[in-house]
């Protein structure tokens, strides 16, 4: 079972709070859209060079946004991507958090606040970025396999967009060969 899927079934007890935290942060009530939050996950995973996570969350972002360009441009250059000034600031905070918490400067925080970011939005941005640093290291640290074919990511994107991050009753049986 590729990427995160096998790991979450290997140790289901610790997987549960990881899922709960993810569901809350990425799908819970927020003034940031689900698409925005998937872009945060994408930017951090891309920065950590985690192929599985970057591809899956790019696919989810694309599905939520309705195009392939936004996520692609955000990965290439946040400043010229078609997102709001506030999201540019929050995505910059995400990227810096991905490197190290200490790289988040008061300047980037002030930029976000000047663009209208609330304390809750800043909190959630940093925590989502931090959470994806957990995921990227978990997935690559245990050398999980990549899917055999790229269509798998579309199935995953559909699952996370339409069913969120909590465990389905059948686990991943429907994705196994």
């Amino acid at each position, binding site marked *: 079972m590729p990427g995160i899927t096998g*790991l979450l079934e*290997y*140790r289901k*007890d*610790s997987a*549960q*709070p*990881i899922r*709960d*935290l993810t569901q*809350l*942060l990425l799908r*819970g009530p927020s003034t940031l859209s689900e698409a925005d939050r998937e872009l945060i996950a994408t930017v951090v995973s891309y920065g*950590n*060079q*985690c192929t599985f996570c970057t591809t899956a969350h790019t696919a989810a972002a694309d599905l939520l946004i309705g195009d392939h360009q936004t996520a692609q441009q955000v990965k290439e250059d946040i400043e010229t991507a078609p997102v709001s000034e506030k999201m540019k600031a929050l995505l910059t*905070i995400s990227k*810096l*958090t*991905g490197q*190290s*918490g*200490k790289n*988040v400067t*008061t300047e980037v*925080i002030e930029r976000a606040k000047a663009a209208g970011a609330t*304390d*809750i939005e*800043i*909190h*959630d941005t*940093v*925590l989502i*970025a*931090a*959470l994806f*640093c*957990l*995921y*990227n*290291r*978990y*997935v*690559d*640290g*245990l*050398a999980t396999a990549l899917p055999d074919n790229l269509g798998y990511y579309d199935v995953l994107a559909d699952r996370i967009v339409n069913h969120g991050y909590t465990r389905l009753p059948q686990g991943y049986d429907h994705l196994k060969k």
Partner: protein
Amino acid sequence: MPHINVDENLPGIRALMAFSPASATPMGELANLLLRSNDSLSMADRELIATHVSYLNDCFYCQQSHGAIAVCYLDGNTDLVEQVKKDYAHALISDKLKALLSIAASVQKGGKFVTPEQIAAAKELGATDRDIHDTVLIAAAFCMFNRYVDGLAANTPTDLASYPLRAQQIADKGYGNHIFSNKQPVHENEGV
């Protein structure tokens, strides 16, 4: 000072958790499952892994906090904990734990830095798949916690004597929302 408006009377991650209790709950559950277990790896082993990773990430609050918790489990052996933080290869710990700490150090840099050789070495010294899984996940989780704390510039107490007091609270009761909702432990001669 913190990047967001949090309770200035709570230290480090506790203030962040009080700001957002809903996200604090699963983080506390994860900490309990990964760190408050003696399943193969002891609670002391687990806190040493957390402390070393926090040291590598240069997160003062986290390395002091988890170092102090490890000291609680190690009969007050602060020297051992300091040694493990800075130079575990020469610390008086098992070779198996050294091999796992080397894996944790690689995870801290990035998942792809963990090599098959490191895994093989750990297994040869008796590490099970579960030991390796838990080591990687503890290291990954602390890469999250360290970034949460430093990314929001959480208040870091400079009174080093306060860390053992909070550590004892955790050693007694484990992790959970009680760490910010209960009264913070203080020295006996303070606050009457």
